[in-house]
């Protein structure tokens, strides 16, 4: 365990030292004859959106400064990311005063989009995939999607997901969303053998109204409630009062959900250097106040740091979680999927998942080539805690990835192949 904590500290060390990149683009100005001119005005046009305050301040800071095309390209990148649009064009024209130029960012809003969210083939678990359609009307986003996922949880769940989202509720610091999910579950034999009767459910429906408050960029707080209904089959049909037979009962798992998120990015994807930090702490509390059958508290801490320098990329990831009380299986922690302890079969580690988890990973990439190392443990009782390690190699281009990973253990180690997109 100490080894794991040491590893985690070593992996997390770069987080402490990261700061804004030096955006000095020496020589770029020399190459562009227009760098001698002063920026007269900067406008963002083309959509029904409100610019986040920090972005608006950044854009206004260009006025009165010398023209710097590479810095404007970085702002276009941020506009694409922050406004969730696919196309931002920069138009530069002569200003009204001599030796001045005007800059316009032309944002092309997308009202309808079809998205291929995630797809994965893992040699142990088979296919997982997600796709959907999004419509954006007057600042409201409506998404409808289909998915089948055998990777991220102990169960394979397949079904629909629908979401309504409004990114500006009076202020751009407050977002609202309502999400509905309805899934049918399939279970691995190892889980069925280890589970108690009543732990296995056949369907899961979740309704979650949530709000997001932007405390200050890039720190956000999500809060809301999650109402889940689980269809739990009886081992044998039971007689009801009306004389009929019931094969299953419905249980509820309702919880208050709150997540604090931090996401910061420095540099540009077009530049030589880029750094990115993603961190979150989430708590879910299933309380009797919400009329739930499952009373529990779940804490999850996640962190991910990425540093790209020219063709070299290093990514360091960390997660830690604790679960108290009696939670449904989909809330329990599992390792051994396409992002944690890659190469291990999650049903060999713990077919019912654990109430405690800790995990660290380091990925290094040079151009398309990628190597990675994972270490972690999942357990219920301290005496069952057993740290595991794995390593692998692969190819990665943008979000497309092909990898083979091995569990690091004595004896025969069967590799697992992963192929897909955004996993």
């Amino acid at each position, binding site marked *: 365990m100490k080894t794991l904590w040491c590893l985690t500290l070593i992996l997390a060390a770069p987080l402490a030292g990261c700061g804004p990149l030096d955006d000095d683009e020496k020589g*770029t100005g*020399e*190459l*562009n*004859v*227009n760098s001698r*001119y002063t920026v007269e005005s900067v406008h963002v046009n083309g959509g029904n959106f409100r610019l986040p305050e920090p972005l608006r301040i950044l854009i206004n800071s260009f006025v009165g400064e010398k*023209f710097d*095309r590479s810095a404007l390209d970085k702002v276009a990148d941020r506009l*694409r*990311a922050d406004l*969730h649009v*696919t*196309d931002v064009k*920069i*138009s*530069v*024209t*002569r200003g009204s005063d*001599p*030796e001045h*130029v005007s800059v316009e960012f032309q944002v092309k809003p*997308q009202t*309808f*989009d*079809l*998205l*291929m*969210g*995630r797809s994965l083939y893992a040699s142990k678990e088979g296919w997982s995939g*997600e*796709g959907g359609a*999004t419509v954006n009307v007057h600042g409201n986003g409506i998404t409808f999607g289909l998915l089948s996922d055998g990777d991220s949880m102990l169960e394979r769940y397949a079904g629909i997901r629908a979401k309504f989202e409004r990114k500006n509720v009076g202020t751009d610091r407050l977002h609202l969303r309502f999400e509905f999910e309805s899934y049918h579950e399939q279970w691995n034999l190892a889980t069925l053998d280890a589970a108690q009767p009543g732990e296995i459910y056949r369907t899961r429906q979740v309704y979650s109204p949530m709000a997001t408050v932007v405390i200050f960029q890039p720190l956000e707080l999500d809060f809301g409630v999650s109402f889940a209904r689980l269809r739990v089959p009886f081992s044998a049909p039971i007689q009801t009062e009306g004389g009929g037979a019931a094969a299953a009962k419905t249980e509820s798992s309702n919880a208050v959900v709150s997540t604090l998120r931090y996401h910061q990015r420095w540099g540009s994807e077009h530049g030589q250097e880029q750094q990115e930090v993603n961190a979150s702490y989430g708590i879910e509390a299933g309380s009797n106040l919400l009329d739930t059958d499952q009373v529990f508290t779940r804490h999850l801490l996640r962190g991910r740091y990425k540093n790209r320098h020219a063709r070299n990329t290093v990514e360091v990831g960390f997660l830690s979680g604790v679960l108290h009380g009696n939670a449904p299986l989909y809330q329990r922690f599992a390792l051994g999927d396409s992002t944690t302890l890659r190469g291990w079969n999650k049903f060999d580690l713990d077919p019912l998942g654990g109430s405690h988890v800790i995990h660290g990973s380091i990925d290094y990439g040079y151009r398309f080539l990628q190597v990675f190392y994972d270490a972690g443990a999942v357990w219920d009782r301290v005496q069952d805690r057993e740290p595991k390690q794995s390593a692998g190699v692969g190819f990665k*281009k*943008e*979000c*497309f990835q092909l990898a083979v990973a091995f569990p690091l253990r004595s004896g025969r180690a069967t590799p697992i192949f992963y192929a897909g*997109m*955004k996993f």
Partner: protein
Amino acid sequence: MRTIKSWWLILAFLSGFALAMMAEEMILNWRDNRLEFSAPRVHFLGGRPLELLHNAAPVPFDFQVTLWSGSRTHVFQKLTDRFVISYDLWEEKFRVIKTQSPVRRIEHLSAVDAEKWCWQQMSMDVNGVGASEPLWTRFEIRAEDAKDGPLFGGSINDSGVSLARLIELFSRPPAQQSHWGPFDVGPFTLDELKRSVRRGS
């Protein structure tokens, strides 16, 4: 009847000559033991690169010229250079910076003059080449506007791969030209060049 046939012959000859002239894009010249290149009909300052330049973006152009001597397998010399061109929005003139040693820079040029200056900078020292030795040259230009661009033209974002954007991407007409050449000339000899200007296509 005989008069009509003669006219047809003259017309056919003139058409062939005109077509041949149009096909010749690169002109070679020999001066002070240097091989000089020019291509008055090749305009790389057009299309997508020109659109970027008019939008105050600098555009790098990579030039490469190869000279073979004796046979097509023996490379006598290969020159590569990068020219970064930008367009002055107020003066409506071009600035060109030759980035390889010796670094050179020129401003206040029209599009044609900017192109011509780039060609001139690629002249090649041919000391050591026999006057009657057969020679071949190849010239290529490449604009670096989308060389290292994203795999699917920005259709991938945090939410996934946008199928609508992919459909739009694949429905577009073929991309604007960003590669010119290769322009091949040869075989020729320095003796021939000294006597006349050599054209190639």
